């Protein structure tokens, strides 16, 4: 199956990737080839098969409702690209 350039752009925008024009073209070709290759799965009859979403871990223990120490500011914000006070700063969000 062949992806259109529009589809590549739509997926890139969902994934918040600003691809260059060359990258878009390359993605279109390569993703189309990969999708062709994985299309073989349609040959498998899975009408009576349950999906596997977890490899193991059937029992997940729960945690007691106890407050644990949070990060001090130098850990929470230590890697922040931009901060104001103890808040992370981002370009103004326009609603």
């Amino acid at each position, binding site marked *: 199956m062949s992806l259109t350039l529009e589809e590549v752009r739509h997926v890139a925008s969902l994934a*918040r990737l*600003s691809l260059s024009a060359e990258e878009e073209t390359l993605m279109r070709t390569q*993703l189309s080839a*990969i999708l062709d290759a994985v299309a073989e*799965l349609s040959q498998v009859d899975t009408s009576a098969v349950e999906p*596997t979403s977890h*490899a193991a871990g059937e029992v997940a223990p729960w945690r007691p409702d106890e407050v644990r120490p949070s990060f001090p500011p130098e850990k929470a914000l230590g890697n922040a690209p931009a901060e104001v006070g103890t808040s*992370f700063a981002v*370009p103004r969000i326009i609603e």
Partner: protein
Amino acid sequence: MGPTDLSMLELGRKLGSGELSSVEAVRACLARVDRLDGRVKAFLRVDREGALAQAEAADRRRTKGKRAGPLDGVPVGLKDLFLTEGLPTTAGSRSLESFVAPYDGTAVKLLRAAGTPILGKLNMDEFAMGSSTENSAFFPTRNPWNLETSPGGSSGGSAAAVAARMVFGALGTDTGGSIRQPAALTGTVGLKPTYGRVSRFGVVAFASSLDQVGPMTRDVPDCAALLQTIAVYDPADSTSAPVKAPDYLAEIEGGVKGMKLGLPREYLELPGMDPEVRAAVEAATRALEKMGAQLVPVSLPHTKYALATYYLIAPAEASSNLARYDGVRYGLRVEGKNLLAMYGRTRDQGFGLEVKRRIMLGTYALSAGYYDAYYLKAQKVRTLIKQDFVDAFRTVDAVISPTSPTAAFRIGEKVSDPLAMYLNDVFTLPCNLAGLPGLSLPCGLTRGNLPIGLQILGKPWDEARVLRIARAFEREHDFHRRSPPLGAA
């Protein structure tokens, strides 16, 4: 023979007796790094001061008679996917180039508790996506056996560092073969434990339902000892299993007599198999038969769909796991005229091509209108692949195959053809999809003097038996004692 030729357990014994000190061991490793890593390029960061300080602490413990265990003082390396408090953790990515981890992951904490000095952080394919370490954002790592070839990946830095004796052992992660394939290509031993055996807490996630942490060592007993250190139930990882690990070293010498080893007929029919690899693996299975194992043909009929299944599930999970690298709280930010532009530019420049390719593929497979045909379908086929193994393990104790269809390939050879690169993983992927333990150990050398790996897959939680089979083979062969031709230290 210098100290770096010792195995982890041998060194551990010498440290215990006082014949060697941990500081000496660390210095020997650092000397080797200084001499070789300019060519091998296994390390992203060497933590000299940290490692020496930890070695000194180990030596003090010994003099007080308070050794933390058999590996106390034995220097190791970490794939740069493990968060280490206060040290950069890059995941091989520009997006995390400046990221200093604010906490230690669980496996790292366990290593620290066991007293192993951490020598540094090892190169890898970006976010563990790749089979050659060429997808590192920083530089490719070279295979110590032939510097023109790749050590495999994604834990290629770990494998190369262990093979080149720059560290005694290392931790890697394996999502589709990222421990076992580089182990095969570098003549080392690598184990991917059962999913849930080792905590994933504090390991940068690639594909959460497939990722698993494992040891990479020079021989099987070291592999068992390192696994013992990290195979601990962790309440901080909801997929960590509350299953107590057995004593892995206790039964390792038990041999294979009477064991039934399955040979999947589909594996030998897979395309792209190097005849030398096939011959070496056949010789290895005959050797195991001679030791008393019974070889049983088995069928894993859905194995041929493993690659397609994996390349839908892993990218889908990755597309979500990598959404957090958005330039808001940590990591790279590339400013833009507004928030949307900041996101797009940060992620476009933070990620390499392979990572972007998989994010795109995974986003597509999960998107409205395609979920059922791609992601859900792949999850259903995953059930069938898992069931194949359940069926096979009704009659056999383990399954034997090549680890990789070829020995080490030249750097640059496959990098532009993602589908050809993905074929590297055909033998290793099914094990991740089924959540099983799988080990690779050296079983031969090509005419070009490149290592060949043998893969042993076990039942869930049956690492002990996998190690025992591997050890039986290793005892009768000397592949694990061969060193890459880098010159003596």
